[in-house]
């Protein structure tokens, strides 16, 4: 169906005197990571399909400062945060949606300490809402012979207590689902949080993503579902490392919905 989509940019809307309901915060991985760009595109297709009023910041977007903060660079984080808060104030942004649990967490919990108060929704929560409202209807035939295992992102799950929304989105696909032994609040990290994404791991006996991927593979699921750009990188790498990329695929929940709707 791939009709071409024009992604609305907030500055252009503002020039026309329009205000979107939501700011879609794409995030750095969503904008630049080749694999995660596909997730961003999938999510945007869903937004258009459901008729959501949204816009992106485009080239005005910049890093939230999360990786800097988690790496101890509070100065750099606050520079980014205070700059972004000003930008969002200029566009009168009240509601933010994002696919990245790290961006989600920092907007929801930490920007308020610096004066930025927003209603922040992770894409898993937003998609659940659209599914519940009947705006996104999965074709039950697409995934009915597949088994899906979901990996909880730390900053969505333990960090913010959101375990059910991504599972509800997956449930709407009518696939078989299975859980890893360590799931929800006991889920094992993919290994990328706390700025680990941007450095080599310390010496040890194993990589964290290998440990987690093996747990996911042991469930026998054919699809490992994620809801975070860093988890996706880590688990996709882990699946390749274990040479299972033919049998087992790693998709974001937004991509699964796009496939199930046929967008």
């Amino acid at each position: 169906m791939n009709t071409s989509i024009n992604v609305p940019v907030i500055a252009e809307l503002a020039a026309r005197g329009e205000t979107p309901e939501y700011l879609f915060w794409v995030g750095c991985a969503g904008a630049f990571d080749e694999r995660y760009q596909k997730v961003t595109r999938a999510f945007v297709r869903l937004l258009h399909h459901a008729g959501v009023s949204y816009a992106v910041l485009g080239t005005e977007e910049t890093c939230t400062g999360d990786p800097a903060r988690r790496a101890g660079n509070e100065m750099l984080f606050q520079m980014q945060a205070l700059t972004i808060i000003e930008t969002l104030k200029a566009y009168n942004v009240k509601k933010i949606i994002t696919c990245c649990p790290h961006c989600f967490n920092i907007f929801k919990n930490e920007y308020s300490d610096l004066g930025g108060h927003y209603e922040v929704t992770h894409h898993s929560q937003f998609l659940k809402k659209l599914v519940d409202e009947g705006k996104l209807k999965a074709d039950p035939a697409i995934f009915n012979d597949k088994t899906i295992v979901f990996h909880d992102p730390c900053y969505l799950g333990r960090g913010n207590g959101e375990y059910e929304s991504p599972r509800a989105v997956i449930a709407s696909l009518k696939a078989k689902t299975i859980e890893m032994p360590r799931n929800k609040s006991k889920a094992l990290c993919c290994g990328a949080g706390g700025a680990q994404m941007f450095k080599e791991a310390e010496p040890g006996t194993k990589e964290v993503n290998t440990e987690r991927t093996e747990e996911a593979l042991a469930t026998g699921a054919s699809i490992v579902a994620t809801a975070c750009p860093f988890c996706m990188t880590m688990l996709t790498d882990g699946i390749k490392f274990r040479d299972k990329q033919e049998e087992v695929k790693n998709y974001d929940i937004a991509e699964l919905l796009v496939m199930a709707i046929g967008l």
Partner: protein
Amino acid sequence: MVKQIIFITILLITLGIFTYTVKRIYNFFRLTKPFPVSEWGKRINITLKVAIGQTKIFRLPVIGFIHALVFWGFMVITLGSIEMVIDGIAGIERSMSATGWFYDFVMASGDIMAYVIMVAIIIFLIRRLFMTIRRFYGIEMQPKSKIDALIALSIIFLLMVSLAGINLTYVQGHPVDYEGLFPVSAALAPLLFGESQNMLFLHELSWWTHILLIFAFANILPYSKHFHVFTSIPNVFLSRLEPLGHLPNMENVTREVKLMLDPETAFAPAPEGEVIPSRFGVKDVEDVTWKNYLDSLACTECGRCTAVCPANITGKKLSPRKIFVDLRARMKEKGPGLLKNKSFDDSKSLIGDYISTEELWACTTCNACAQECPININHPTLILDMRRYLVMEESAAPASLNTMFTNIENNGAPWQFSPEDRMKWTESL
């Protein structure tokens, strides 16, 4: 009368030693940084749930349940201990028996729990002595930790044996007119003592053994990891209430950043009474908040945090438990010097001499440790405060993280991509 004098003398000595210990520890708290506390209603709620209800200990259901039994048992038995102190001072017996049904309830549950705790302690001792529980081991687990545990368990066992002794000899000595209810002891006493009703010596022996053990225990606890018995309920009450994902803001950095971004507001004088911190982040014990230090005193080294730490599981040096074991040990080492002289320096520090940077950089901030801690110790925020010191005071981040910082500064993304390309993902839509 003689008994009263002896009792009161011992009680005063006990309280004297305890006051000395508490004052010493309180002084260490004075060396630490503020930790704002508000929202008392929520705190009462979390204390009822997590401390009294033991909800987080049940995350390991079997052994957690046994711990909960010991905890709940202690709560009712403590009421009986208060009565014993009143009795001892006033030279009377069963001073609280006038409370009627309440007394029956306290005595009956205390009697049942004494035997339940005995069984629980035997299970705990078997685990400690004959089983290999992985989380009881680790580089931070010195022999003292194991000895502490065995001493505490043995004392608790003897406390319960002597309490059972009090109950058994009491019901046996007053078969028809005893106050309170003692379901287990009343059933066991005839089996143990037969027809004999002369229980005076055994009763006195049990009574004195029990109360003296309580006094000794109270004064040993603060010097072992089992100080937990006193500190964990306050620690839960003082839990961080924000979502685990939230990292506390550094107000002193906000001021500096605002200065850089907007000179007009920044040159406003600092609010009165504001103390300018000597350094950013945590390098040593004087930089931690008093809640961090309380965490270290409340930790009983159960190792549930370390057992779920992804870094530790995959063989990295980081062990979240060690962070707090180290903080406590470092305060013990440096605290006395700092109390004498505020600028005391033994040319050592928490970072470096206790906690290596390798440990600090291995954390994924996944919060599994904090989620698991039965008494809501928060490890990641302290680890992050130490990273903040390393980066902002020492510029000692791993090279690849410095590259990431530079990328954010120059291109507004942690990777080296041009901000102009932020919309490229839309091209194939």
